[in-house]
Each structure stands twice: as structure tokens, then as C-alpha cells.
């Protein structure tokens, strides 16, 4: 998946009305709640075959960190 595509998908996964940018701080999103975290876990499992844990998500600061979590599954 291309990075640009991922950012559009992310907007949908979080059910956010504003676009997502790499430098955005996740904690500053109103939508960064437990529901979104579960949606991310399901999205990574379904699209990348990666099992993300809540602890993995707790470590993240920015959207860029979220992209890094997918490793080579998201093209830079």
C-alpha cells in the first residue's frame, strides 16, 4: 500500500473528517480513542497480516510512527 493511500484509509478507519498527515500527533486527535485503536488492530491484521497490540499503539506518538509499524507493507 502506498503511503498516500494509507493516509486516506486512516481517515476512514478513525472516522475522522479532517485529513491525516504524517506529522500529526495521535494524542491530539479527538478520535484517538479505544474504538479507533481496536479499528487499527483489525485494519493491520486484515490488510497487512500484522497483529498489533495495545502496547504497540501506546508507544506511538505520530502518524508516521503508525506507518513505521506496518514495516515494508506501506511504501514510503
Amino acid at each position: 500500500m502506498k503511503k498516500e493511500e494509507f493516509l486516506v484509509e486512516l481517515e476512514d478507519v478513525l472516522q475522522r473528517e479532517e485529513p491525516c498527515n504524517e506529522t500529526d500527533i495521535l494524542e491530539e486527535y479527538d478520535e484517538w480513542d479505544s474504538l479507533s485503536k481496536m479499528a487499527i488492530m483489525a485494519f493491520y491484521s486484515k490488510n497487512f497480516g500484522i497483529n498489533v497490540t495495545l502496547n504497540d499503539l501506546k508507544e506511538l506518538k505520530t502518524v508516521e510512527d503508525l506507518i513505521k509499524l506496518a514495516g515494508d507493507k506501506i511504501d514510503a
Partner: protein
Amino acid sequence: MSLNKFNKVKISGISVVVPENEINIYDEAEYYDNSIKKIDRMRKMVGFWKRRVANKEQTALDFAYNAAINLIEEMKIDVNTIDALLYVVQKPDWLGPVNSYFLHHKLGLSKECIATDIVQGCAGWVFGLYIASQMIESGAHKKILLLNGDTPSIGIDPSDRNQAPIFGDAGSATLLEYTDQTQPSHFNIDTIGEGYDAIISPFSANRFGLNFLKDEDFEKLSILRKEKATLPTGNTQPLLGSYIDGLKVFDFTIKQVPKTIKTLLEYANTSQSDINLLALHQANKQIVQGVGTEAGFDLAKVPYEAFEMYGNNTMCSIPTVLSMLDKDIKKENVCCCGFGNGLISAAAILNLSDTYLGEIKTFKKPEYVWANTDEYIDYWRKKMQGQV
């Protein structure tokens, strides 16, 4: 995993009852900063919309009884031919005797009909089918009435946004019969006892001393009742309430439940494309779709509308899904999977093509029901004094 196949069991009919009282999440905007957008987001992501909840005078027993009466009437069942009654419950009216004896009496069942309760939660319908199927397959019983009832909403404060919007209450009745024709059904049950504390009501019975609180304990109780625990998510919940480790449960459902289903498909020598419908426990929309996807199903075969209309009514959710199906949906190969507190993941592949599916009915108060708690207390006072 526990894999089993039965050949002589037919599921003849299913009937579901829900309470009249409907709560719509759009009427609860006060909990969402009065923002319709926030509610829209919840609805889209998890399917929060409507749910049916019991009032405090209604119990699981009432719903199960009402569903039984409806099924007996609709299918014109001769109650004298029922030779076993199984009542699946986790919130009984009283702890002894098992509540099925009361149901046995009120339904007018015969002395030859055995009765017992089965204690299970969200997987309680599939688990009940599993027990009943063995009783029929062994030749010991010919016609079994399986009742389910639950009131998960009782005791949850409406301001508890972790739990209140999820749960609905309901009862269901299912008739299973012996058939001469070979009619295979396949089951797979995975039991994860280690997860016993992922969904638990730790203060609901005798470990808490519910039956032997002394006068002086009530002061302590009134303080404990107000205590709230702050969850890692930042939300709070009452210490004495039922506890759900949401993320642990989510992890279990997304990883274990699809495995249970896939193993069962392999065992039954079938595939996702041959299954007409995947009727999952309606935990919430996000979980239903997550499990459906991970199990390799086209989501068009995985309904979640029952959750939107009635909430997660635990062990009655699969009967609710089945009762909402369009008449023209093929039901030869239906995969059902109940999962939840235990932890347990229980799946079955069933042939429901000849199963009577009634419409979901609104609860009607049975004649036996005491008008309120005071009347109930008064009844027992008089009974013990030999006046009733």
C-alpha cells in the same frame, strides 16, 4: 478444540422475545457532548443505535418463559411430548433450586420430562444446542425445549458509556427433535479458562458474601457501591459492577474466534463459499465484521443488523439474527458462532432449511409475575406463614 458431529438432530423452531422498552442512542446525546456527529461516528464504527432493555421487575426467567409460550403456541407443540427442558441462564431469579423447575411447572411439562439449568453467557445458545444434540443423538431424548434468557442491561448505570450502549435483554426458545433422516450438524468448542477474568461479575454471588451480609456490612456496602475504578483507557466503571477487559476481549475475538470457525469448516469438509450465512454473536458491529473478515467470509453473509436494532443480547443474539433473516435466504448451511465470557468460542454448522423462525415478539407479562418487589416480598412472607 472439541470437534463433534451429530446425525439425528433437527432444529425444529426458534422464537425470540424482547422487552418493549427501546432506547435509541440519538436520545442520549447528553453523553456525547450533544454532538450528533459523535453519535454518527459511534453508529458507523460499532453499530450503536437501538437496544431493548428490561425494567427492574423483568428477569431472564420471564423472557425465557414468554419465548417458550410463544413457540409452543406458534408450533402447536404438545407439551406432554417434551422430554427435556434446558434453561441457559447466568442471572437466575434465585440460586436454588435451578430455575428450570419453576419453568417446568409453569409450562405444564410432564414428570417424565427432565429439567436443568445450564450456566453460560454469550455462547449459551450454541452451548445449549451442543448439550441437547448429545442427549438426542444418544437416544435418551426425543424432543428438547432449549430456553435462553438474559438481562445484561440490569445494573448498568446509563452514564456508563463503556457498557450501557452495548447491551440489550431478551429470551429465546428453541425446539430440537430426533429425526430418522440423516441430518448432520457439526460443532467446535474452544474453551479458554485462562480468560475467566476478561469478562466477569466478581461481586455477584457468594464469594462476595451476597447471602450472608450482616447489618454492619451494609454501611461498607453503601460506600463500595459508590466506588469507581479508572480503567487503562481512562474510562471509569463501578467497582461492584460487571467488568470487561475490552481490549483483551477484542484480541480474543479477532484471533481465537476465526480459528474456531475455520477449524470447524475443515472438520465439516466445507468452505466459506458453501456456507450460506455466518450468524455470529452480536457483540457489536466492529467485532462481527472483524471476525467475519478474519474467518475469510464475504461480509454480505455476515449480518450485524440485529446488534443495531436490539443491542448485544448475549446468548439470544444468534436466535435474534436468525429471526430477522429474509425468508428467501438459503439456510441449508448456516454457520453460527457464539463467543464471550468464559472465555469460550463455540461454533456450529447447522441445517436450518426446515426450521420454523417466528417474528421477534414483544414481551408480554406472564400471569405469574409479581407486580413489584414489595409484592414479591409479601408473597413469600405469606407463603412462609402458610397463608398462600
